[in-house]
């Protein structure tokens, strides 16, 4: 503890060298945050836009009803790892609002499996003969409220008991109704299965696994749509921006490290007599190294705090977004570690100087 206090005292006693170190480290942190920090924010924004476009979605369609997909397929797919949710939809049929002759038709599909958590939905007990209406279908059917009745041309009727509102990648379903599966149907059929992977890089493998689980009787009847190409673009964007950011960080850190080495080397050179006296008073080489390293670490800490604050303010000002806190903290820690590493060569030089040469008076 006394050695740390002594290091702080020495840092204060060398205002020029300490200020230069503080400014170098502050500049390193500030430059990294205001350049790479912006790159990271841009990368996050681009990736978020790509993700919005549905990079993780898989749609399996039994186009001609010959693949043999059924509710059990949906349950088996639920057991796969790496998926966020899965939902199956039966064949679509046209319905019109009951009591409105010549009204516009909309599609109604039985839904199998849990409704995905991203779909906003009113309460629904899935009683047979009930349905939920999407906002587009609600408007087309001319319903005043999401309640009422719809009927198909073959005479089937459904009670509309609530609503749903699906965002991407299910937003196209908003122009239809979800019907509760009819238990009277002995062999229910699923025509479309929607799957969302947990990560974009899992899409290809998960699509293969889904097809394997379905085990189509006629593989040619099964259509699989994935966002694999989007996922590849996503990976390429992330890799490109990440590589650029890492290169920039390394270059700035390297330049800063070299400047700290030069500055500290100059500082220990002017203190040869100080180190000689300390050695005569009993300081070991290890103590001298610790002293110089701690002195530099203290100034590096101040510089990192100053530079991080300035860099974060710059990023906030330029992007109108708060800086990425984990990244800012990581940059500050990296700068401090680099500063300590930069202090070691001058510290070792100081510790190995011959004390007698500077203590002797000619």
């Amino acid at each position: 503890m006394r050695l740390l206090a002594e290091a702080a005292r020495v840092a204060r006693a060398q205002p020029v060298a300490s200020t230069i170190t503080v400014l170098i480290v502050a500049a390193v942190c500030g430059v990294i945050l205001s350049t790479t920090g912006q790159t990271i924010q841009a990368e996050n924004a681009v990736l978020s836009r790509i993700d919005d476009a549905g990079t993780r979605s898989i749609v399996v369609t039994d186009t001609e009803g010959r693949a043999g997909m059924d509710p059990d397929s949906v349950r088996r797919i639920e057991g796969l790892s790496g998926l966020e949710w899965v939902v199956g939809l039966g064949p679509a049929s046209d319905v019109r609002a009951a009591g409105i002759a010549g009204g516009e038709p909309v599609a109604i599909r039985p839904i199998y499996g849990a409704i995905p958590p991203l779909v906003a939905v009113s309460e629904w007990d899935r009683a047979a003969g009930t349905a939920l209406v999407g906002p587009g279908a609600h408007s087309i059917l001319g319903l005043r409220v999401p309640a009422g009745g719809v009927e198909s041309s073959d005479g089937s009727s459904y009670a509309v008991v609530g609503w749903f509102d699906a965002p991407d990648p299910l937003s196209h379903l908003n122009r239809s109704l979800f019907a509760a599966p009819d238990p009277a149907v002995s062999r229910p059929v699923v025509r479309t299965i929607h799957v969302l992977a947990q990560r974009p890089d899992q899409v290809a493998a998960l699509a293969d696994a889904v097809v394997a689980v379905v085990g189509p009787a006629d593989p040619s009847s099964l259509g699989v749509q994935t966002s694999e190409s989007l996922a590849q673009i996503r990976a390429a964007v992330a890799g490109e921006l990440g590589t650029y950011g890492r290169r920039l960080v390394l270059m700035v850190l390297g330049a800063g490290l070299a400047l700290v080495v030069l500055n500290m080397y100059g500082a220990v050179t002017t203190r040869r007599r100080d180190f000689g006296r300390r050695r005569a008073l009993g300081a070991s080489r290890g103590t001298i190294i610790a002293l110089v390293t701690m002195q530099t670490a203290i100034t590096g800490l101040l510089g990192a705090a100053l530079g991080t604050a300035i860099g974060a303010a710059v990023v906030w000002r330029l992007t109108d977004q708060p800086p990425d806190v984990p990244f800012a903290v990581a940059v500050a820690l990296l700068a401090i570690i680099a500063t300590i590493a930069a202090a070691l060569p001058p510290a070792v030089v100081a510790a190995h100087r011959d004390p007698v040469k500077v203590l002797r008076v000619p």
Partner: protein
Amino acid sequence: MIEVSGLSFGYRRGEPIIDGLDWVFPSGRVSGITGRSGSGKSTLLYLLGLLLSPWLGRIAFEGRDLGDGSDRVRSRVRAERIGFVFQDAALDSTRSVLDNIIEGSLYTGMRRRAAVTRAGELMARFDVGLRATHKPGEVSGGQAQRVALCRALLNEPRVVLADEPTGNLDTDTARIVIDSLVGLAHVEGATVIIASHDPNIAAACDEVLAL
């Protein structure tokens, strides 16, 4: 007591300054090292102070050979058992007189409070107590050397090594410093070794090694 045997050292290969020296520096006595400039007085002092390692030979510190010990061990002995007094005081101009005196406690692990108490006693003894908060640049050369003496004695060393301790002092101040060093040996039983070409110092020593 320090005993050297077969001691050889030089700064350049093949050019020994000290060559095969055998000598005993006993406790409770003042030993002088004299000789012309370049004869190796200061070099011998720094060898005895474990700041240099001999080419050959043995430096036994109270019976324990430390001539080629590890830096850690030698530093520990220097911090706890040896006090240095340099010709130009070698005070740190950035810290106060008091902080200069207690600097050595940083390397011995002595608590600051204990060090300050001990420094107070020494400053009173050498009449520099009123200058405790002054910086070295604000005290005279004689006072600075007495401050250096206080610093050397802080850890109650068994050995005091003084390199031309009166070189920059007037006669009266030089006498105070010499008397203090003699008192350390005769009263407190320390081993006091003074390197000097001053005949007055040689006269005050109990024995003299001429190089």
